[in-house]
């Protein structure tokens, strides 16, 4: 029986690896998801066989039923624009589960504490619960910020890092005491509370727009928590799946940090985005604005158009309207491409998912390094709700918070049009010189509304 379980776990671990492997290209990606699903099914089957004869089946089954009943609508109702929030919520669920299982293990094993809760098992248990609880509240905070329920702005106060460090030291002391004397369970609630508090404290000084990076790091933590659970339970499958997850989170956060030209520590402790308040004092400079009608006429007479989508596209949910614009222009023989910056939006790959949702062929989505050479030959660059990723300051202004971040060379296009609601800055909180260039036209308005109007103008003209 045990052998069968072991084989099932091996198969499951292999399927998880294949799942991630197949996700490397859109062609095999669905197969990848499928492999992951089967892997999970095999793992659950293995768990039931391992727990055989399963007691409290009514508890388990009803929990599974409820979880499924909640999960399905979340997956189908959730709009694509809310993917970052959903991911954060999901992390919170996973991490909570790990923490609770760890807690239950600790109390459950008390009678046999002497043999079963010593040495590395106890270390793993403490890590599991620490990471689990911390990721739980941290992910909820991140979700709140992304959903704009909580203030986006980083909240800082004096000696913040010192306070955090002090609390952390207390948690470590408690953990060490528990590791040495696992029967001192009265200490555990304090440890758990500190861990929960910690998740909150770690996130509040981080700006809302850094949440995607934070989520990736929390993903890593959730994985490591599952890993630690594997050490507690002596389950290799948990170790493998957790490690896969941990490395995935790590790599994604590194990619994001690189694309923003910032360091890990800067994201975690930099209180980035604070400067947003200081933008009021900018001197008044002239910009040219234009109407939807004018924009439409410029677009239809262009030979090639590069659309640069950004976070505003996600906010306005303008992807389907943009699809109409794309169809319309392509029909007129205009060559339309999309320039995808690696950190446009609020998640890695955010723009790709949104545009794919609107059925825009993925070979039209061109990555930064590839498309940057095309801007000088392009008639119109149409920026829709993007800001920081087009800011030429990143190339020149050493004092700028985004200095060194690779950007899209939008300023090299013959004509630039920018759809946004105001002259307000983007996430980095800085002014964008792009808007003051002679060849730039500002199209003020909500992305969805403005694009709708442009599209309305276009067929009218076609008929004319």
């Amino acid at each position, binding site marked *: 029986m045990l052998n069968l379980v072991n084989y099932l776990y091996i198969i499951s671990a292999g399927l998880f690896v294949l799942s991630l492997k197949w996700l490397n290209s859109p062609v095999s990606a669905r197969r990848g998801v499928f492999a992951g699903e089967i892997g999970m099914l095999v793992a659950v089957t293995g768990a039931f066989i391992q727990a055989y004869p399963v007691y409290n089946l009514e508890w388990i089954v009803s929990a599974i039923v409820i979880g499924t009943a909640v999960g399905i609508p*979340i997956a*189908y109702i959730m709009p*694509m624009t809310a993917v970052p929030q959903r991911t954060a919520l*999901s992390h919170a669920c996973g991490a909570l589960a790990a923490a609770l299982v760890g807690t*239950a*293990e600790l109390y459950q094993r008390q009678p046999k504490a002497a043999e079963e809760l010593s040495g590395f098992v106890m270390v793993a248990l403490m890590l599991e619960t620490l990471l689990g609880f911390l990721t739980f509240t941290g992910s909820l905070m991140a979700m709140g910020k992304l959903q704009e329920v909580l203030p986006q702005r980083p909240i800082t106060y004096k000696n913040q890092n010192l306070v955090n460090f002090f609390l952390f030291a207390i948690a470590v002391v408690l953990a060490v005491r528990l590791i040495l004397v696992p029967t001192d369970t009265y200490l555990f609630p304090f440890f758990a509370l500190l861990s929960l508090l910690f998740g909150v404290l770690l996130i509040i000084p981080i700006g809302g727009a850094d949440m995607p990076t934070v989520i990736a790091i929390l993903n890593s933590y959730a994985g490591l928590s599952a890993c630690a659970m594997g050490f507690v339970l002596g389950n290799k499958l948990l170790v493998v799946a957790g490690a896969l997850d*941990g490395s995935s989170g790590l790599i994604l956060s590194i990619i994001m940090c690189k694309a923003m030209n910032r360091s890990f520590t800067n994201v975690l402790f930099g209180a980035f985005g604070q400067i947003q308040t200081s933008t009021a004092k900018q001197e008044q400079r002239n910009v040219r604005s234009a109407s939807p009608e004018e924009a439409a006429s410029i677009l239809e007479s262009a030979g090639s158009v590069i659309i640069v989508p950004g976070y505003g596209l996600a906010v306005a949910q303008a992807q389907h309207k943009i699809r109409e614009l794309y169809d319309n222009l392509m029909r007129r023989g205009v060559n339309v491409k999309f320039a995808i910056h*690696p950190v446009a939006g609020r998640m890695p790959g955010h723009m790709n998912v949104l545009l794919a949702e609107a059925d825009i062929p993925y070979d039209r989505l061109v990555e930064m390094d590839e498309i940057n050479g095309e801007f000088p030959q392009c008639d119109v660059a149409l920026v829709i709700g993007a800001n920081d990723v087009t800011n030429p300051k990143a190339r020149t202004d050493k004092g700028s918070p985004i200095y060194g971040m690779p950007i899209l060379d939008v300023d090299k296009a013959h004509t630039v049009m920018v759809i946004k609601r105001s002259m307000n800055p983007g996430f980095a909180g800085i002014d964008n010189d792009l808007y003051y260039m002679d060849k730039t036209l500002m199209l003020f308005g909500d992305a969805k509304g403005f694009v709708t109007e442009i599209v309305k103008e276009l067929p009218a003209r076609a008929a004319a």
Partner: protein
Amino acid sequence: MTFDLGTGLFVFMLATFIGLEVIRKVSPLLHTPLMSLTNAISAISVVGAIIITGNKDATMATKILGFIAITAVVTNIVSGFLITDRMVKMFKKRETKK
């Protein structure tokens, strides 16, 4: 069904290597689905949750904690895989059309 620390570390090291190799090759196009897929996979703690809840000696506290854990994690699994599939399908469709 236990193992020594050495075995655990061995498995951990190997799995981390695989993770780093494989993830690095995922196309940026699919980074959002990747995030939600690994998210679903991290719900593997369902295994631990089932084992501890299904234990003969489970106390009431264990049962309640286990119940919450399973509910949370199954939500995570179901929504995670379904939404990833939903996303990935969008990319898939384009392939045939192209």
